[in-house]
């Protein structure tokens, strides 16, 4: 009993104390955070002597609450990029100290004043080979219920991706996607609404495709990569794959800002990025990372499919987040 109490007390102290040799890293849990712990936190602890406490999952509401209450217990947080842009505007983030974090080799698409890239990924079209006749070749096939019957699965939440897919399928050229024509997108989505099964998280998307519950769907490339590693018979089309990114941010008022910046330098270094990309199938945001990766791991990355690749416009989304979400949930719950 005494031991348990001491343990709890120690845990509480560890969580609240702002010691110079400790910091807290928060991400989404699951295989992603495992890979981040192994590729970034462990080597960083060894080289710097700073202990990295893992927390999670990322919760934007919690992040805001911490900053508002001026009691920030997270030092580095993995967030979606459109959120980071909005959060920076709302004053929730510390600026990145690029004197500590080397900027030269970072992909400029995924780093800015208040956020540095974590990894980037693509939405790809994946299908269960046993459940789909033939090979879907692009987003338009997801809307063709005659040629490709069966349930299709899309990301449930209001986020960059599904709206763009509907517009591309409806024939909007890639360079004319923005500003998003929401009316047109929802009209297109209406045509398959009863055939859609939504996935709310990565594991769910894998389960739906692997079981054949959904014949095909819009998935994160890393999740398809993991399915294929497990030997599941899934096909994947990289045609018009849509890139989005996770970024690392430091909440305003973080207690261990200096350690956080050092951690960011390690996480975005060529080696840290190479190791993480190899473990997850997500792409590195450091342009020098691929040189440190085995050739077959590089082939699995979105970087190998830049032909026809489309960058989801994070600035547009950050600007219109609330407005799109209102329309999205109104349409979805109807």
């Amino acid at each position, binding site marked *: 009993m005494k031991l348990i109490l001491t343990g709890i007390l120690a845990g509480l102290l560890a969580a609240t104390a702002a010691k110079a040799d400790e910091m807290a890293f928060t991400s989404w849990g699951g295989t992603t955070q495992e890979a981040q712990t192994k590729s970034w936190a462990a080597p960083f602890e060894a080289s710097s002597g700073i202990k990295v406490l893992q927390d999670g999952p990322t*919760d*934007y*509401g*919690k992040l*805001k*609450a911490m900053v508002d209450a001026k009691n920030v217990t997270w030092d580095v947080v993995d967030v979606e990029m459109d959120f980071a842009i909005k959060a920076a505007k*709302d004053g929730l983030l510390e600026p990145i100290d690029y004197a500590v974090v080397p900027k030269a080799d970072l992909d400029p698409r995924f780093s800015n004043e208040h956020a540095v890239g974590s990894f980037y990924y693509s939405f790809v079209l994946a299908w269960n080979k046993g459940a789909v006749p033939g090979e879907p070749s692009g987003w338009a096939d997801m809307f063709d219920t005659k040629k490709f019957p069966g*349930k299709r699965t899309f990301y*449930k*939440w*209001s986020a960059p991706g599904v709206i763009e897919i509907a517009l591309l399928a409806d024939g909007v050229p890639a360079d004319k996607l923005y500003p998003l024509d929401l009316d047109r997108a929802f009209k297109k989505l209406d045509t398959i609404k009863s055939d859609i*099964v*939504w996935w*709310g998280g990565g594991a769910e998307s894998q*389960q739906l495709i692997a*079981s*054949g*519950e959904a014949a095909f769907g819009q998935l994160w490339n890393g999740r398809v990569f993991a399915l294929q590693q497990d030997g599941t018979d899934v096909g994947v089309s990289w045609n018009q794959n849509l890139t989005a990114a996770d970024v690392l941010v430091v909440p305003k008022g973080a207690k261990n800002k200096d350690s956080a910046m050092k951690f960011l330098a390690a996480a975005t270094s060529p080696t840290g990025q190479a190791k993480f990309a190899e473990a997850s199938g997500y792409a590195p945001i450091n342009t020098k990372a691929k040189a440190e990766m085995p050739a077959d791991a590089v082939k699995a990355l979105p970087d190998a499919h830049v032909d026809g690749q489309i960058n989801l416009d994070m600035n547009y989304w950050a600007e219109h*987040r*609330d407005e799109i*979400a*209102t329309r999205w*949930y*109104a349409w*979805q*719950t*109807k």
Partner: protein
Amino acid sequence: MQESSFRRGSIAGLPAGSGSALPAIILVGLFFIVPVVALLLRSVTDPEPGLQNYAALFGSDTYVRVFLNTFLVASVVTAVTILVAFPVAWMLAIMPPAMGSIVFGIIILSMWTNLLTRTYAWMVLLQRTGVINRALMGLGIIHEPLPLINNLAGVTIGMVYIMLPFMILPLVGTLRAIDPMTLRAAALCGASPFDAFRRVLLPLSLPGIAAGGLMVFVMSLGYFVTPALLGGTSNMMLAEMIAQTVQSLLNWGLGSAAAFVLLVVTMALYAIQLRLVGARRAGGGL
């Protein structure tokens, strides 16, 4: 009203032994009353003082629809739970005690299993490629998979299963308290079994049905995991919507307003139910 019987030996008008309830009162005060007040304040001050969050809430088709849907789901779940629970509770009430405690054990045991695990298990059973549909198709009973998941049917099945113990337990208590002689008396007076059920057993068991029903209804209103996993987006319930509003859109004001309205409606229902049951209880002679 049973108040008077509690007053014996009270100190300063408080029932005897209320001192030992102090920790519970402090706990409820600190971790329920204070947050609720904070929630209310937030809903009228965030981002600026005023009632704009409530205006936005009732002006939004989406929220109104999700509200109505939440009450629809909770009502359906409560009704089905009562129908399923009643025969089980009756069986438990008239069973020999030794056997009854085994059945009781099984019911309680299901409550100890992790909620998420049980919900995922239902997913595996109910999906188009799931056990139930495969078995039915294998037997040639159906040719197309039945839509058992991502709709109201899925939510109802999953939630009724989880709510059953909360209905059975209070109901067994009430049924056990009913003197079996009353049923025999009804039969002797010429009542058919159905009449005896409808005019004697049912009225006498109403307090149990009401207590269990209220508990199930109120718990269903705030349910999150099961509807999210077994329902479709057109069955979205308020808890999920509030979570999205707060966690993803950072709109604490609107989320607080929605949560507060749900709380007020729940309390109002509770008050109405208490009155009705109180009246019936008096009429039922208990």
